[in-house]
């Protein structure tokens, strides 16, 4: 088995890392960095994690336990960070309702619940490894993220939110979460399916690409009607 990644995987990885930087650069250039601080910090940390993973890969090799340790732990931390970024999008949408306190409380309870559920699943298995818990937590958080994004999209349609940038950020996050949740599920259904290894990093590039576009293309005060975006005309 190869102890390094192929050219195609390396190219996708490099592209993803560049796009993560591009998001922060676009947000700073268009004065949206502070408005969507958590999203931008997530992208910046993703960039740092990419660099860290590359260091681990070049020092220890793809099959090493050290690389796997770095990979899965950083993935769990990033997923939690993305979950928090999603919660800040909730705060943007419910800004005028003054329900900030309740959204934060619900987010913490949900995160703790997901962690406990993941712990419970790992506890029942034969290999009670911490790495299994981290993997399980990431997988469950992707699905929770998908459900939360779906609810947020429903709220956007119901409240007739019109901020184009916010709509684009939420929709691209929805595509990202659902694509990753589907990929994780596919991996569980067919553990030997090789193509999943390539699909996941490609999906990973889509989120920074869409966010960079949203920051670059749309001014923060641009508006659009959500009535056009629902699958069922409203």
């Amino acid at each position: 088995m190869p102890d390094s990644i192929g050219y195609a995987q390396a190219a996708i990885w490099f592209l993803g890392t560049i796009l993560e930087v591009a998001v922060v650069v676009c947000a700073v250039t268009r004065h949206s960095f502070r408005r969507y601080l958590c999203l931008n910090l997530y992208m910046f940390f993703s960039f740092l994690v990419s660099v860290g993973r590359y260091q681990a890969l070049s020092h220890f090799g793809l099959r090493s336990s050290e690389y796997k340790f770095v990979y899965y732990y950083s993935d769990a931390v990033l997923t939690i960070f993305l979950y928090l970024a999603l919660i800040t999008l909730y705060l943007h949408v419910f800004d005028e309702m003054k329900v900030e306190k309740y959204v934060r409380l619900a987010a913490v309870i949900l995160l703790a619940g997901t962690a406990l559920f993941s712990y419970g699943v790992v506890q029942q298995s034969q290999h009670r490894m911490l790495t299994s818990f981290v993997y399980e937590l990431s997988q469950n958080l992707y699905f929770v993220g998908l459900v939360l994004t779906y609810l947020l999209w429903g709220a956007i349609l119901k409240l007739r939110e019109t901020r184009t940038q916010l709509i684009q950020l939420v929709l691209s996050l929805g595509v990202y979460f659902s694509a990753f949740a589907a990929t994780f599920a596919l991996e569980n259904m067919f553990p030997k399916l090789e193509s999943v290894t390539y699909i996941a990093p490609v999906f990973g590039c889509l989120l920074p690409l869409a966010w960079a576009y949203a920051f670059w293309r749309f001014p923060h005060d641009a508006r659009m009607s959500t009535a056009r975006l629902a699958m069922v005309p409203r």
Partner: protein
Amino acid sequence: MATLIFLLSAAALLQFFISYSRSLIAASIKQPLSAEVRDVTGIPSTAAGEDFARVIQLLDLCPERPEERGRLRAINAYFGLLNFVSSTLARVIPALMSWTEMERAQCAYFAAVTLDRRIAFSRDMLAQQSEV
């Protein structure tokens, strides 16, 4: 459990992708086409789904703007999805046929607006080169 999660995620992915593509189209649908692009593409004021392939061919002739690449691919994929729905599901559910045709027409209009921008971009580049 994994199968259920996969089915739910795939359904959500489809819905988010359609809404995202429509949000990209919505951002350019209000922009009127220049007389030049209307002449070149043969699109009078409203486009039809059949125009899409022709406009894409014209787009390939113009220098690409890097910031357009991603969304044009997304709309291309969306158009492919609409074609698939139109040739499969829409035959069973006729109400879907008019919806897919309307969406395909908007994809064509989006491509025509992109062509308009590319032509303007090429013209600017030529003007800058001649100044140098």
